[in-house]
Structure formats: C-alpha cells, structure tokens
C-alpha cells in the first residue's frame, strides 16, 4: 500500500546543506499501526512529510496505492492529500474560525460536493464526532475546546474522507498524560475498528503498548525495530492501556534515542 524507495531529503545549498533523511526504504501494509520513533532532530517529521506529500523528496520515490506520488504536480499532490491522507499535527490542528463540526467537514468540502464516499458531509462528520466522543462540542468554536478534544477532533477530521493512511506527528506531544492516553486509545481503537492504517510519530512510545511495527529514525537513517507480538499486549479494546502506560512511564521499556545495533536492522528493499 505504501512503498518508500531510497527517499532522501536535503535542506539548504552547498555549505549549509543538511541531509535530514538518507536513503529511506520501507513498506507499510494496509491496516498496519506503525510508530516512528527517534531522537529530536533525527528526521522523523521529515520522513512523515515525505510520505504525507507535504514536501517532495530530493530523490527517491513514494508510492501510495500504486501511485508514484513524486510525479504529481502541486495541485495533484493537494488532491491526493485531500482524498487519500489524513493529518494530525502536534498542536493547533484546528482552524479556530470554524466550529468543531465545520473543521471535521472541511476535507470533505475541500474535496468538493461531487466527491463523497457515501453520505452527506454533515451526517458523516456528526457520526465521526460521536465516535470520538465530541458530539456535544460539535457547534463549539475550535478555540473553545481543550487540547485533548482538539486532537480528537483532528483525528475525526483525518478520517472523514476515508483515507488510505492517517499520519500523525507527535499527536500527544502537547497533552497531559490522561488526554494522551485517551487520544492514543482512540487511534488504536479506530485502527482496529476500521482497519485503518496509521503512521504515528511519537516520543511517548510507552503510551502505545503493542503496535504492528516500530520504525526508528536515527540521524536521518531508518531502522526497523522488531516488535515481539504480545509482549506488551494491552488486552482487547486497550482498556488496560492506562495502567500499562503508567507502568511504562516509571520504567520505560524502550529508550527513545540511539537504539542498539542488536535490536535494529536496516530495512532494505
């Protein structure tokens, strides 16, 4: 479903040139819940931006659902982002001049009236808001809700066009632990319920419990970390996620920076 091939991204020219991402290649399969972890400045956001078509790689290709996205022009990329991708940023995700409901409807409206996979935008948006527990806030202006509620609304918005992949860049980075847990639980439940692919950049590895895969970025290079199935299984519905996360917070199982060579292998095509 997603294939990244030798994706490299450099910023700047000549002397000031920084290569933030070097020769990254990996696949993501439908329905997978993938975490991207790594130290600050290691290139996680750069990687997410490449697969989110928010900027173009310096070289390499990103193929999503068989489309070589590096070949799209600016408006082709915009249309692709709109219909195939959902975005959740670290903070201030919502347009503060709109209500929560209008924010959730926005990608559908950007897609235009002609394009809707079943149902009218309003009805779909309300249903999504119900599923993220924000039905009561639908009519509130986006700057009137809490940070956790805003992230939940952003997740709902990311789902409205039934995207191939939802991309989230540190979605819990600005939240307290209670809100973080509930946002993580929402993403994991949604992933399971809708067989929705998620790619999530995080510093808070411990909140996520068991995931399908963890990709580690270190100094612009991508490593895939083996995930032993069931090792940290939070149980059905992720109900015990809070307890697991609390335990993880006192004794982190996975140290975020500098994974050891033994626990990583470079992913090659």
């Amino acid at each position, binding site marked *: 479903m997603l294939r990244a091939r030798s994706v490299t991204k450099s910023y700047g020219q000549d002397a000031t040139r920084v290569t933030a991402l070097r020769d990254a290649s990996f696949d993501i399969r439908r329905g997978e819940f993938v975490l991207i972890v790594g130290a600050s400045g290691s290139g996680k956001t750069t990687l997410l931006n490449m697969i989110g078509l928010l*900027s173009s790689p310096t070289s390499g290709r990103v193929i999503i659902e068989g489309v070589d996205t590096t070949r799209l022009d*600016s*408006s082709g990329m*915009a249309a692709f982002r709109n219909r195939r991708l959902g975005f959740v*940023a670290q903070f201030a995700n919502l*347009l503060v001049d*709109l209500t929560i409901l*209008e924010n959730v409807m926005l990608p559908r409206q*950007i897609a235009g009236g002609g394009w809707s996979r079943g149902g009218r935008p309003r009805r779909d948006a309300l249903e999504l808001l119900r599923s993220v527990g924000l039905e009561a806030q639908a009519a509130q202006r986006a700057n009137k809700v809490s940070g956790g509620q805003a992230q939940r609304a952003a997740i709902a918005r990311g789902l409205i066009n039934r995207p191939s992949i939802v991309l989230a860049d540190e979605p819990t980075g600005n939240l307290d632990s209670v809100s973080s847990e509930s946002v993580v639980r929402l993403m994991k439940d949604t992933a399971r319920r809708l067989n929705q692919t998620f790619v999530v950049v995080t510093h808070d590895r411990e909140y996520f419990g068991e995931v399908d895969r963890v990709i580690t970025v270190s100094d612009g290079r991508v490593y895939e970390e083996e995930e032993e199935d069931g090792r940290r299984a939070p149980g059905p519905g992720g109900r015990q996620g809070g307890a697991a996360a609390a335990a993880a917070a006192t004794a982190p199982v996975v140290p975020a920076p500098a994974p050891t060579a033994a626990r990583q292998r470079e992913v090659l095509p």
Partner: protein
Amino acid sequence: MGYRPRLAKRMLFNRRGSLIGAVLAVTIGILVIHVNFVIFQGLYDAIVRDIGDYRTGDIIVTDEDSFITKSELAVASWFERNPSVEAVAPRISASAEINITKSGRLIEETRVPVVGVDPYRDIKASTVHTTVSDGSYVFARNSVVLGTNVARDLGGATVGDSIKLMVVDRWGEEQIRRLVVSGIASSPGGQGFDYSAVMHIHTLRDMMARDGETGSFMVKMADEGQAAAVRDLFLRSFPSDDFVAETIEEASEEQLQGFRSGIAMINMIGYFGMMSSAFAIVTIQMMIVNGKTREIGILRALGARRRDVLVIFIMQGMLIGAIGAGVGTAAGLSYTFYAKETKMSFNNSLPLEVSYDWAKILQTALMSFALAILASLYPSYRATRLVPVEAMRAV
C-alpha cells in the same frame, strides 16, 4: 455555503479590529470623494446656476458688433413662440459715472457697470429681481437698483435717495439723468449685480442714443436639454443677421475653465485618498495572512490548493470592498442629504448647488470595491506561497 467564503467571512469577522480598520479605510476614501463632490462640484454648479440665472439664461444672444439692431419684438417673439422656451429678456449695458449728494457732500463713483432691463420680461427670465433685499426692482423709467457694493461706495445710498447717472452716448456726448434708488441688490455669494446698477432699458437706450437696439437677449428654457437645439434653430432662422447665440456652457467657458481644472485636481486628491485606503487594506490583509500562517498550512495539508487559498483571501478583499463601499456610500449620501437639506453654503454666502450624481456615486462605489480586491491580490498571493511544512512549523 462553501468552505472558502465561510472561512473568508469568519477570518475577517472574528478579527474586529482588522475588519473595522479595512472597512473604515474604504469608507473614508469614498466619503472624501463625496464631500469633495458636494463642496466643489456644488460650488461649480452654483456658479453656473448664478451665471445663468443672473446674466446669460440658458442661451445668450449677442451680435458680432456690439449691439443687436433687429427689433426687440422680432427676436423676443421668435423665442416666445417656441414651446421649450420659458422667457426671453432684452438687456443693454454700459459703463456709468454716478454721483450722489449725501449730507451736503458730493460722492462720485466712476466706471460703474450699468445694465438696462425690461422690468416685465426680466423677472421672468432672470432671478436678479430676487436679489433686491431692500426696496423693489426697477419698475419705472427713472428708477435704479444699486448693487450693495455700489451703494456702499456712494456713502451708503439707500432706497429713496436721488442719484445722478452719466453715460457717454454713441456720439461721445455725456448724457446725465437724475434717477431714484428703488432698491439695493445683494446676491448670496456675490455672483449677482452687487457691483452694478440696474435701470430701465428704455432710459438707458435713450441715454446711449441706441433707440431700438439691444445688447443681448437672455433666454430661459423651460426644457434646458433643448438649449443647443433652439440655439441652432435660431441661428438658422436668421441667417442674414450677425447674431451670436451661445448656450450657457459656451458663454461661460472661459470663466469656468480654470474652475474645472481645479475640480479635476481636487478629484485627483480624492483618488489619492482612495489609493491610501488601498495601501491600508494591503497592510491589514498582510497582517491577517501573517496571523493565519499555520492555519493556511493546515488547510494546504488537508488538500486545499494554492488557488483555494488565493480565492479565500480575495473573497476577503471582496467582503471588505463590498462592506466598505456600502458603508462609504451610505455615509457619503448622508452627507449629501445633510448638505442639501440644510442648504449648505460656501463661505457662509454662496448656497451650494447640491445634487446626487448617481452615475458618479455608483462609479465611486464600484471603484472602491475593485480597489479593495486589487489591494488583496498581493497578500493573497503571499498566502499561496506559504509552503505547508514551513507554515505548520511556525508557532
């Protein structure tokens, strides 16, 4: 409503300060143009009105030589037969020397313009008689109306005073008559006969030895729109006479030319005012764009194209333009209405000729609207140049 107009509206309306600032800029631009129009076009029209009312009518007929020799009756009755003509009045003018004995002292004024009028016809074709503030208009062969300035220069001549008036006749002989002051003329704005004397046309003709001759005919139209046509018809009807017939615009062209270029310059100032409101809009729109950097990035991430971002901010410009044009035009019309109702006058004397020029009002409103959109183009373009990643980086 689509998301673009909705966002354009909300982003603007949720920023009261920017909205009020931008709308005010447009409003002031329009108001300046309206106020300029009321004052300066009103002044111009007032002067044209007074020249017509007091001196030329809608058509003025003169002769290539100084005097018309054709009979007064022939010319007057030709015009009076035309249904679009309201009235016609003959006049003759000369330069006079006037003296008066006031409390035993002789006061003399030279080179006073003196106009001979037909009292019966003149009050129909001209409004000079309405400027007689004291006493009455010329009614007898020996009555004279003194302009207020002439009366003052004659030591404060008043109604009932007797004066001596001397003109030089066509043969170079001095002719003197004793006349009685019947009234003092003082026109609002001083465009009337405040510096002249008005007397009976028969008496003046007699003194000038120009029996049956006329200096000019002023023709007042019932239908002003027909002035040029009637003028042409008149000239064709008397091909063998050396008549000169001009509409008021033609006759006062020289007098008004300077004024018109003055108005053009003042209008330029108005347009410069509009330009500065455009710059204000550029600034305000740039502020809005800068304040919305991150949200624009999010919009782009969600799939809005560059074009959509452009449209949102141009729509915002349209909103500013529409509201500003509406408020500005309303303010301008209120001022015009106020000026008209209170019979506003220039310099506290000349009553302005206040009118509603709907074509110009519409043009001003449309121009401000267009300018607001134009002023939004650059900020809108800047908004489209934001790269989503960079925009979302901004805190």
